[in-house]
């Protein structure tokens, strides 16, 4: 019986390989092939050093793991997709650079040691992948957020904080939205998280778009490099249809 299963699995993987080759994972993760099948299988996948993912080797605070992505050496970027395959919810965030630099930072919750990867989809329909391992004592996804524990999250829900720094060719922009970002993995607390953040200029042109998932940190802070000039309109919506908006006047 076991032999039969093995043969079946081998046949399965051969046929997969002929459809679209899964490149061997430089990080040596046993979950890599499954991630490709789950999220990236529609397009060709390549590992690409131009996709730079930076994170500390060890997650000191599993509810607050800083990750930075820079894919600005690539052109024609449609989407940047972040995931951590050993997280119970692997999807972390999607970033659509639109008119901003393809580089951003934020923090997320990690459940156990895992690679964190950025898959960058370009106009020629190729996923360019980069990533690093993060070691972790763990538990970030199954612990209640600090404001949940403090009980005062509702007083601050949807408050938006921001600042802009002019740094040469781009505007460094930090945007923080008060939100518990509940994963739904803590008993008695359903998932409750910001689903989309849109940044537009005064003409309504998209500057950048972010689709967070549950593992993004509580009260997330996004560090972005937007184009020059003009005000920035921030519109966000969570999975309970709460809408939050604010405007950075410039």
């Amino acid at each position, binding site marked *: 019986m076991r032999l039969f299963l093995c043969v079946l699995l081998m046949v399965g993987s051969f046929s997969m390989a002929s459809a679209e080759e899964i490149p061997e994972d430089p990080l*040596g993760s046993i979950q890599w092939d499954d991630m490709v099948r789950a999220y990236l299988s529609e397009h060709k996948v390549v590992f690409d050093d131009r996709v730079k993912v*930076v*994170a*500390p080797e060890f997650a000191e605070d599993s509810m607050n793991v*800083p990750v930075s992505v820079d894919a600005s050496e690539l052109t024609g970027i449609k989407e940047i997709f972040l995931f951590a395959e050993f997280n119970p919810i692997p999807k972390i965030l999607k970033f659509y650079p639109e008119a901003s630099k393809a580089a951003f930072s934020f923090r997320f919750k990690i459940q156990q040691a895992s690679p964190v990867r950025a898959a960058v989809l370009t106009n020629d329909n190729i996923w360019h992948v980069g990533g690093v391992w993060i070691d972790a004592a763990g538990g970030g996804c199954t612990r209640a957020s600090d404001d949940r524990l403090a009980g005062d999250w509702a007083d601050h829900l949807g408050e938006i904080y921001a600042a802009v720094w002019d740094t040469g060719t781009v505007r460094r922009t*930090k945007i923080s939205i008060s939100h518990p970002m509940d994963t739904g993995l803590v008993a008695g607390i359903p998932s409750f998280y910001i689903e989309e953040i849109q940044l537009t200029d005064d003409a309504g042109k998209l500057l950048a778009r972010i689709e967070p998932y549950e593992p993004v940190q509580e009260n997330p802070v996004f*560090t972005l490099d937007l184009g020059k000039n003009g005000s920035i309109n921030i519109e966000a919506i969570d999975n309970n249809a709460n809408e939050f908006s*604010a405007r950075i006047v410039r």
Partner: protein
Amino acid sequence: MRRLLGGLVLFIFFSQPLFAAKFDYGLNAKPVADNTYLFIGKKEDFNFQNGGNIVNSGFIITDEGVVVIDTGSSRRYGEQMLAEIRKQTNKPIFKVINTHHHPDHFLGNQAFKPAPIAALKGTVKGIKNSGDMFAENLYRMTGDWMRGTEAVVPDITLQPGIEEIGGHELEYIELSGHTGSDLAVFDRTTGVLFAGDLVFHNRTLTTPHAIPEKWFVALDKLAKLPFKVLIPGHGEPVSDLSAIEQTRDYLRWLVTTLENGANKGLSMNEVMQTEIPARFAGLALVKSELNRSVVHLYPGIEKKTLHKLN
């Protein structure tokens, strides 16, 4: 590489008893003043080899009995400490003192029961709230060295002030900064100052519960005491202000680095890339502790640079 490391960790885990025979911390009571002894820990982070022997603990032999200051990272550490104390004296344990609520300073408490265990009010609360979680973490980081260890909450709330014990005049000084509740014990009779983790020496300070502005105040107060020997929480004892100054210098650089980074709009990872000045090259674990401190302290500092919009 990761697979290899994983294998290595497993290997170490299973073969641990071969080289860490009987989980012997190799504690050695070093005399530092009259009736005063010290166990000096390694300048390392917790790992499977050191079993948590990374901290300084000490004891004073008075006419009324032994005063123990901090009890190490596990039940085994406390037991081995007690065995070493017994090589110096048969006097009863008069009192055990925990300087603050970090696990390497109180998880040996078990070994000293039924002796009274005393700590500042805030420290008692911290051990009550987080003691079990700390013990669990240390199991993960040091393995079987922790066997049988349970957090024992101090049963006496220590009042700041002076207590005369068997010919030693002990001054309990309530401070904060390394945590919300830090005790320094100054033995006015011998001039020995047990500074707890308010002072680190040639080992980078740690900040999981730090309040830097209070820490500076605490260092100023410690610097004014007429001590002859200062026992830092981690690193070798000193007879001058050098360890206090080193702690203050690094803490000031750390806070300035974080504030400058936040004022420039840097992300956490960008701040972690900051070049470390050459004068701190001799501080053990400086790179990894900088990364940890950024995680602990940067969110609060960063938040101050953002403006509320709605």
